[in-house]
């Protein structure tokens, strides 16, 4: 079999995964897209291993390694998604914006100290 078929297939798979990672809004689907990208790499590894007739079969060994790592990764990823969903009630990646740098935050140190809302709420009680 010519090398071009698995290579093209791997490229298509990778592009599909990339699109999913960049465009999908559901975290589960993003994780699935990551798996697609990983498997595109695996396909490449196996195809080139066969084409090069490597006596040590380093490509195949690395593929097994990648599969194991991917399994671990998806386990942890799903656990995180589960926890996020339990806490926030959503797994929409567009709404998880805690890393955002809201304007005015770096100047908070020089600004007036913000009153603590919870202590204020407890004060009259």
């Amino acid at each position, binding site marked *: 079999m010519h090398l071009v078929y698995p290579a093209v297939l791997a490229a298509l798979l990778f592009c599909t995964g*990339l699109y999913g990672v*960049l*465009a999908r809004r559901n975290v589960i689907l993003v994780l699935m897209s990551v798996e697609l990208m990983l498997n595109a790499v695996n396909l490449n590894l196996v195809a080139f291993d066969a084409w090069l007739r490597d006596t040590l079969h380093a490509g195949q060994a690395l593929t097994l390694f990648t599969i194991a790592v991917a399994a671990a990764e998806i386990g942890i990823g799903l656990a995180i998604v589960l926890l996020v969903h339990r806490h926030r009630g959503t797994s929409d*990646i567009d709404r*998880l914006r*805690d*890393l*955002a*740098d809201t*304007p005015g935050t770096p100047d908070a140190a020089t600004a007036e100290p913000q009153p603590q809302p919870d202590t204020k709420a407890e004060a009259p009680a």
Partner: protein
Amino acid sequence: MTPTTTAVLVPLLPFLGAVAGFLLGRRAPGFVRPLAVLPTLAAAVLAAVTAAAVGTGPATDVATRLTPTGSVPIDLALHLDGFAVLIAVLVGVVATCVQIYSTGYLRDDPRYPSYAALVSLFTSAMLLVVYTGDLMVLLVGWEVMGICSYFLVGHYWETEAARAASLKAFLVTKLGDVPFLFGIFALAADTGTFRITGIVGSIARDGLDHPTLIALLLLAGVAGKSAQFPLHTWLPDAMAGPTPVSALIHAATMVAAGVYVVARLLPVFAASAAALVVLAVMAAVTMIGSGLAALAQDDVKRVLAYSTIGQLGYMTGALAVGDRGAAVFHLISHGAFKALLFLGAGALIHAAGTNSLSAMSRMSGLDRRVPDAYWTVTVALLALAAIPPFSGFFSKEAVLGAAEHAATGGAAGIPGAAGWTVLISGLIAALLTAGYATRLWLLAFRGSGPEAPDHSPQPLAMKAVLWVLFVPTAAFGLTAPFLPDWFDGRSLTPTLTTSVLGTGIALVGGLITYATWRHTTAPATRTAADGAATDPGRVLLGPLYRPAAAGFHLDAVYTTLFVRPVRAAAVLVRFLDREVVDTYVRAAGTGPRWLGAAVRRAQTGNVQTYLGALLAGALVLAVAAVLVATGTGA
């Protein structure tokens, strides 16, 4: 032990006591009192041993050089002669008395440990100044005393007055110390050594290149330390410190250091007639001005402070006529009776519950409340007023005799003008001294009105010390015939002319004050118990009373001359810093701040945007790498 060993131990022991006091003060309160008293007492005993060993023999000079300096060498030198050993005994005795007295006076003070350690350090520094034979080592002791006085005057730092007084004492003495340092350098540059013996020898051999300049520079430091006009203003304010500290500063240390330095370096001053005249005029202004001011003060301690300034004026006057024996004689006898006066005044204030003389004059029976203080202070005041046969009479007559000797042209190289200035101002000051001593005694012990309140009895430590100091106050004058062997050999026994004149004037001063007091108290007791009206000083001084009470407004002059310009300069500097320098800094920060604001917009929090940017960057890099690798991009 040789005199050298004991002389090294004398400053060292109080220093070690001070270090131990600082280290152990909080952890082991039980050791504080022994650590305060015992090293000082041992130093006093060793100073006496050293004095006995050196005796009237030739001066002992020992020096070791720790390290070469490259130019003028600095030696750890000891110079033990009659002046040094006798003053060291005085310092040791007074410091021991002050330490013992303080155990009673400050027994409830929470800061007593650090106080006692500072007093020890102060004593050690003064002993170093007295014994050293090298001007640089002397300067070390000189400056340590400056900083100790700052801490001790500010002992009650909770009060505004004590903080201001300690700062003032420090700044005013520093104002004199800067020229003093330059004077030492100029002296060393001229003579090529910091050793006092070397300097004196060099002057005797080749003279000095700039004697007047050096003498005047040194004089500034002496005026600051010894509280001579015009740098005396710190001393009355230094009364904000505890009374034993006043006794220490006024009697044996600090103020004595300036006089002692001039006595040691007298050939430098004698080389310049102009410097001697300046010294004489300074002494004259100091003596008369402080006498007038003392007559108008209401605070007992301020009266004594001004009297210290005046008595120091006598000492500088004696130096101005070239008789350092008389100056040191008066220094020692004044040290004894002034320490007694301050410690007695402490007891008096303790009993009366007030510093104010007019308040004391409204109480009766203070003399019965503190009989020990009454008798000892009475004798000390007689000594202060130079009434025979007490110590002050002999030493003051020695000063006046020296002035008369110089005025009549009997002293070679001393301008007659200096002699006349010192003699006449000394006689006027004797009148004033007797006046304010009488006024102090009458107002404090002869008040009329309700019985003085009965405070707790005086601790034994405080009473005993008064009687210890009473002995030299009463009897030190008897040593006058023997002292010349210890000093320069010039006779210190009173001459007939000056003794009759001086004693007569003192008696007149005392009697006038007494008569005025009788005159003012008689109607006052009839009409109302108005304490101010019984003050003889107010009547005697007349229109001078108000300016004299304010120290002739010298502080106001200093405020105008120095404090205001410095404050204005501070405002200017603040403006330059805040408005000019900061503008540049803020402008330099603007660019990065804008850049930061722009970059911050990219931080949306959307992970997918970040990944997209990452991908785009990676692609750009990959394309660039490929182009570079294939060589088409070049």
